[in-house]
């Protein structure tokens, strides 16, 4: 049913969604509970604060298959005071987990870039855990255009 309706609606084109997740989807997207659970597990009891984390994403992704993202966390990156890890989540994908970067004092700067898949317009969340156990979060919406041209 889904396929037929989509095909009728789309201009004969299989969108980014098809390429990434196939022509049928098991679940529309991650539930709010899953996001909460992932954040809680990562925070290990700490309260999640705002700030310190800067997440760079395109406002509009030309194709959801390859969306460049980068995160940078403000930290002196010393043995005593550094960023341990940054977890990236996408709340509109079938599974919210995207990637977790693990930094060390030898990183010098807590920054990393990668390219990710986004099934549709959604929020990308970056949450950083510091060596003192504190946790900070940033969230950006990325609009994903579906119905790009061409097979």
């Amino acid at each position: 049913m889904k396929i037929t309706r989509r095909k009728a609606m789309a201009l004969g084109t299989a969108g980014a969604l098809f390429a990434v997740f196939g022509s049928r989807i098991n679940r529309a997207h991650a539930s709010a509970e899953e996001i909460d659970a992932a954040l809680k597990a990562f925070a290990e009891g700490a309260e999640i604060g705002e700030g310190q984390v800067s997440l760079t994403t395109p406002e509009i992704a030309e194709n959801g298959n390859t969306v460049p993202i980068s995160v940078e966390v403000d930290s002196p990156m010393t043995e005593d005071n550094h960023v341990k890890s940054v977890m990236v989540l996408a709340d509109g994908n079938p599974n919210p987990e995207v990637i977790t970067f693990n930094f060390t004092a030898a990183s010098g700067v807590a920054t990393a870039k990668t390219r990710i898949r986004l099934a549709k317009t959604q929020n990308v969340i970056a949450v950083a855990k510091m060596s003192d156990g504190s946790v900070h979060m940033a969230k950006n919406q990325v609009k994903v255009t579906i119905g790009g041209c061409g097979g």
Partner: protein
Amino acid sequence: MHRTGKKLAVIAGAFALTIGLASHSAGDPDENSLAIEGETIVTDVKAPADSPLEHLYSGWRFRASETQSLQTDDFENPGMVAVEQAIDQFAMVDGSEGKACADCHADVSDFKGLRPNLPRWDEAKSKPETLEHIINECRTERMGAKAWKWEAQEMLNMTALIGLQSRGMPVTVETGGPMASVWEKGKELYYTRVGQLDMSCAHCHENNYGKMIRADHLSQGHINGFPVYRLKWGGLGSIHRRFKGCMQNIRATPFKRGSDEFIALELYVASRGKGLSVEVPSVRN
């Protein structure tokens, strides 16, 4: 990184249309210029006198800045992975004659200047030939190896590697002499309406380039960057794969890869991009 509000509005407008072209003119090619590893790539040039277009723009100029930047650095260009694989293939013995490409072609840079002139007339066979034909002729006639399929990964790797040797050189494809009738056939195909949507190549790529077709920014449809790494494909694809995709979009029955029709269309479309730099392997959405 950030798009203007105007562009947002255009995209929203394009979403509102299920079929057809948005009538905005706000989506002209951008003003960015392309240099790859310090080498200048011509992405816009005054069209030749006989061109139906006034000015030619590479497809690169119609892409979002994030996509554009993937092509400015050979490390970040995911198409270069294929090129590296092709370098290995080039030195690899294959077939009954016990030869590798490198046994006859000492250096792959010997192929500099080939890509801008393709497709070309093959005197011996009295028909036009593309890069895929040239590669397979070597494999079957001199190496005793099996021909690669048009869209095989090995073929895409090799067309990328050979194309790369001419990066920065202007497209100069020959359209006269024995290629004249092939070119005419390609031109006819270009302007012939086909499919349920009853559209020709020209409806999008000549009359409406720069506008949004749904959420996509229409280019002039040049092929100077093929094989192209498309984000949508997550890999390289051939010119004929792209043609096939276009035909499917307008709900026509596509010609086959390697068919006389697509070879003729390849020549005609290549000729429309004369003067633009070869950009192989380019990166598009």
